[in-house]
């Protein structure tokens, strides 16, 4: 459960995020849709505690992101824009490192790791060093290490960025599976079709401001359009920066 209330963040004169409020619920996929530079990633980075909001607050499972960052960090799994791995470590060693930082160890850690390796279909590469991995392979490792502690809340920043059609479909399927286990999933995207296909709740952001939010049906009703893409464009006021 993620609650965001009046979140605001500026970098110098640039107002990246202004007064953003929304809630993301367990067992649902919530999408932050907006053109490039709308403030989606900045919002997400505040939620995963790397940036501090200028004002407003956010709570994850009831823990305030500013007051209890460590509690928040142990309750979220994050796939950020930066997905660097350690090239001299094997896939298992990469994942194990993050698992140990989440206080997992021994059999519990290995079991959870094996589960993720099967789930993400990477048995073949599990004991290889990650040097020279393809984008898809790297992404799988990055997801596995983000989910090693089986977090209740999953934050994904543009999760299908740079993937081919087959991998994109597999990724979407994986996100749905996560949702079906009752997790609270918050993802960002600038791809209308993706948000339309995946999300139970949609928050539309442009220029750092939330311009509309609700379920797909609610958005259609509110904008008076008969398809989601038109509804998005109506809410944002422009097609620029979308796909």
């Amino acid at each position, binding site marked *: 459960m993620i609650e965001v209330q009046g979140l605001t963040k500026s*970098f110098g004169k640039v107002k990246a995020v202004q007064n953003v409020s929304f809630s993301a619920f367990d067992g649902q996929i919530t999408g932050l849709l907006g053109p490039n530079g709308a403030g989606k990633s900045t919002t997400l*980075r505040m939620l*995963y*505690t*790397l*940036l*501090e909001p200028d004002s407003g607050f956010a709570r994850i499972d009831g823990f305030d992101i500013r007051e209890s960052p*460590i*509690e928040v*960090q*142990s309750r*979220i799994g*994050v796939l*950020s*824009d*930066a*997905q*660097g*791995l*350690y*090239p*001299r*470590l094997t896939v298992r*060693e990469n994942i194990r*490192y*993050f698992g*140990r*930082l*989440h*206080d997992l160890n021994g059999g519990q850690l290995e079991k959870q790791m094996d589960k993720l390796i099967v789930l993400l279909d990477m048995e073949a590469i599990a004991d290889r060093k990650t040097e020279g991995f393809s984008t898809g392979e790297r992404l799988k490792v*990055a997801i596995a*290490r*983000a989910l090693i502690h089986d977090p209740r809340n999953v934050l994904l920043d543009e999760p299908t960025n740079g993937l081919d059609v087959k991998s994109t479909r597999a990724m979407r399927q994986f996100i749905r599976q996560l949702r079906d286990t009752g997790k609270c999933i918050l993802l960002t995207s600038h791809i209308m079709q993706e948000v339309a296909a995946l999300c139970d709740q949609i928050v539309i952001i442009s220029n750092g401001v939330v311009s509309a939010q609700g379920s797909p049906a609610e958005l259609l009703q509110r904008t008076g359009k008969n398809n989601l893409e038109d509804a998005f464009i109506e809410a944002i006021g422009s097609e620029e920066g979308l796909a």
Partner: protein
Amino acid sequence: MNKIRIIFEKEVVDSLRDYRSWVTGLFWALFGPLMMGGILIMIGSSIREDIEKPLNLPVQNPENAPSLIQFLEQHDVIVEPAPADPEGAVKTGDLNVILVIPEGYGDDFSSGKSATVQLVLDSSRQSASTDRTRIQSLLEGYSTYLGTLRLVVRGVSPEVIHVVTVEEVDVATPQSRATALISFLPYFIIFAIFNGAAPIITDTTAGERERQSLEPLLINPVPRRSFVLGKLMAAFPFSLASLAITLIGFGIVFNILPVEEYLGVRINLTVTTLLSIFLICLPVVFLASAIQMLVASFARSTKEAGTYLPFIALIPSLPGLALAFFPVKPELWTMLIPTFGQQIMINQFMRAEPFSVSNALISIITTIIISAGITLVAIRLYSREQIVIRKR
């Protein structure tokens, strides 16, 4: 505490697998001892050659001065015939120095006048300086010897012409004379400590940012200070290894080479000395890792860090370089400067000078306090959000 260990272990394993960079580090650690050994061998062999060999001296017209020739031959000089053009031969470098005895020498000598001889030499040629000074002092010796004899014959005390007698009192013990050469040693030791830590620090800070793994790492539920401390400590074993290898290298060079034979003195680099140096240098390992960590954390890439760190390694080494030329007494203020105090103490150990325990304690404590301060600054740096939003 547990998290610090996890980060430490991961960084050590990761760095050990980067074997190219630590093997290069090993070579750097051996650089000082190898260079010092090379210089020692060169100095040693040239000093021995020059002193032990008899001097071959071409003389023009030796028949004009039989008693001078006899004197020279008694002093280990082999008199040879000179070429027809003495000045030409010296100019081209074929011969170092040639003695020319003019025709009038015998007459002047017999009549008690000042008899002139010419020494053909090239004062700009360094390699001929030993030959030159040797023959010059022999000629002066001959002149003084005969002059004294003549005064005695005339019933005058030779002291009349010695208005001032210069007596040199050389306070340099043989060992301290040799340390003029090995004053460079502290420089190499401090440099090795910094150099050993540099590749690991670079990889775990600037490298982490460059390969875009810093942001995912910092999202883990770990206090920022644990990241800083774990990464800092991961550099310690590599820095210590570099220090140990350099010291062992120096130990081998100074104990295997016949330094006593080369320089005429014994160098005090026993196992105990080396261990003492190792112990007083331990806080420098902390300092070198902390200061390099702070600087590398500002770098966006390993390449950028690679342009900063050699400077950092050089700055603390500068006092050591200065020590080679201007000996500094081990006063209290010098102990308050990290790396400077250690270098002075290393010098003391090698000179087998009396050594003050309180100085060592002051040096160790100030170095640790300053290193801890730098570490705190690094922790604050890592606690700011700029650490991740800095442009990659």
